[in-house]
């Protein structure tokens, strides 16, 4: 059974239930139950109409739950057991679900969890495993998120940038446990792109595809980071790159530039270089300048300093770096790199050691420590 196919039906089944009058939280629970049931039953007895099957089972679960509830409330307000057929949900309904799950009243971690469950169709256990928290904690995070958005109506358009931020966070989480969150983020962004025509949705999808394409080359089998310049480009996924570039070009032709399109353009320029030495750094610097006009995220300036160092030489890179706040994360790592390029290995070694102590993750710390050790050994 194709689990991704099953999960891709989640949002449309959920919106059918909501359209029939089920409240979001109860409908979402019922759909989860139906998905679990499908995983159990389908391998031996695949339905002819998977979506119809899911709707029927989920609706029955919803009625059972509501009936139990109603019984407790002395059978007041009984729910009509024969649902009105109602209009077939449009793609637009799925879009509303994305907006709801990324609602600004939710914290980022709640929005991520709710999106993965209600739109992605992942189980609470899978989400908990992916984020390395106990299942009970994740269950509470999700039910709290559902309570938070319980008063939100599904009929008003939201801000697509909030949805994109959530999907970006999921993508960046990568791969831990049984769930490949990067692949899941790509699937959800692809699905979103079919429901809304927006150049930044396309931009984010392109960005994800272009970075995902490098996945095999980004780490050695033991998990060590391989910097872009040292990656074996034969390992890059050319199909993903081709698709990412095509999506990006279409988006850019709309002439409504945004952050994700600009980031994707930089990723595309890297993808386009047959060797690291052939990278078009001048154009990359130009894209960083564009990006700096779209966001005040200081990381952009930091990365621009690296690109300037490649385009105009390490001295120019260091000059660009000197204008930035040296308390920025990875500022020291960039300084170390530029000093090494400038031939000052002594300063570089010292800065790599310092940067390693400040590294936000283990793989980066190990990488920076190795850089320091390499320079210390060669002196």
């Amino acid at each position, binding site marked *: 059974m194709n689990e991704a196919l099953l999960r891709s039906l989640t949002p449309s089944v959920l919106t059918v239930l909501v359209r029939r009058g089920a409240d979001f939280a109860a409908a979402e629970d019922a759909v989860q139950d139906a998905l679990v049931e499908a995983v159990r039953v389908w391998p031996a007895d695949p339905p002819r109409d998977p979506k119809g099957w899911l709707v029927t089972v989920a609706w029955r679960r919803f009625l059972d739950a509501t009936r139990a509830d109603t019984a407790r409330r002395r059978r007041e307000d009984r729910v009509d057991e024969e649902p009105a057929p109602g209009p077939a949900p449009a793609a637009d309904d799925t879009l509303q679900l994305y907006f709801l799950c990324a609602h600004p009243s939710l914290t980022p971690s709640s929005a991520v969890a709710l999106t993965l469950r209600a739109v992605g169709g992942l189980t609470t256990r899978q989400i908990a495993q992916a984020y390395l928290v*106990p299942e009970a904690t994740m269950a509470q995070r999700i039910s709290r998120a559902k309570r938070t958005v319980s008063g939100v109506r599904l009929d008003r358009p939201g801000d697509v940038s909030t949805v994109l931020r959530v999907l970006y966070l999921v993508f960046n989480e990568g791969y831990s446990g049984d769930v490949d969150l990067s692949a899941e983020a790509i699937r959800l962004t692809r699905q979103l792109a079919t429901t809304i025509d927006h150049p930044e949705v396309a931009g984010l999808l392109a960005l994800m595809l272009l970075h995902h394409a490098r996945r095999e080359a980004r780490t050695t089998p033991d998990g060590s980071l391989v910097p872009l310049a040292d990656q074996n480009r034969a390992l890059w996924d050319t199909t993903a790159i081709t698709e990412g570039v095509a999506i990006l070009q279409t988006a850019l032709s709309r002439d409504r530039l945004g952050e994700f399109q600009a980031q994707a353009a930089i990723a595309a320029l890297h993808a386009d270089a047959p060797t690291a030495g052939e990278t078009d750094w001048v154009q990359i610097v130009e894209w960083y300048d564009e990006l700096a006009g779209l966001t005040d995220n200081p990381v952009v300036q930091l*990365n621009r300093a690296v690109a300037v160092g490649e385009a105009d030489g390490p001295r120019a890179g260091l000059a660009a770096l000197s204008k930035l706040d040296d308390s920025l994360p990875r500022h020291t790592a960039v300084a170390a790199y530029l000093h090494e390029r400038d031939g000052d290995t002594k300063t570089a070694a010292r800065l790599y050691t310092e940067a390693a102590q400040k590294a936000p993750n283990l793989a980066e710390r190990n990488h920076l420590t190795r850089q320091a050790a390499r320079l210390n050994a060669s002196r």
Partner: protein
Amino acid sequence: MAKYLLLKHYRGAPAAVNDVPMDKWTQDEITAHIQYMRDFADRLEKTGEFVGGEAVAPEGAWVRYDGEGRPPVTDGPFAETKDLIAGWMIIDVDTYDRAVQLAGELSAAPGAGGKPIHEWLEVRPFLAAPPTIPDCPH
């Protein structure tokens, strides 16, 4: 979405404001303290921020490898060890500020006289997995 370790120390932290050792508290004060810690963990589970937590015994041993085919060597405990961890809690929160806020609440656990201990807790971020999109291109 970042994990933090909240560390409570038997020794090694700066002195608490309400610095009366636990064996000088009344029974009720001890009960109230334990209840506060339990409630705190329960509340964090309900907010979806609790990962785990345990207390550890003050007495332990140092252990090290002693060569191929030999059992590990143990030593200690050393009474003079300055820093002694009493317990830990792991939380998964959206921001560093939230981690600090929660550590502050944990530090308000009641002690002698039923008043907050104001003990110093250590907040340490975990080194997570690297992001898929590296913040730095090298």
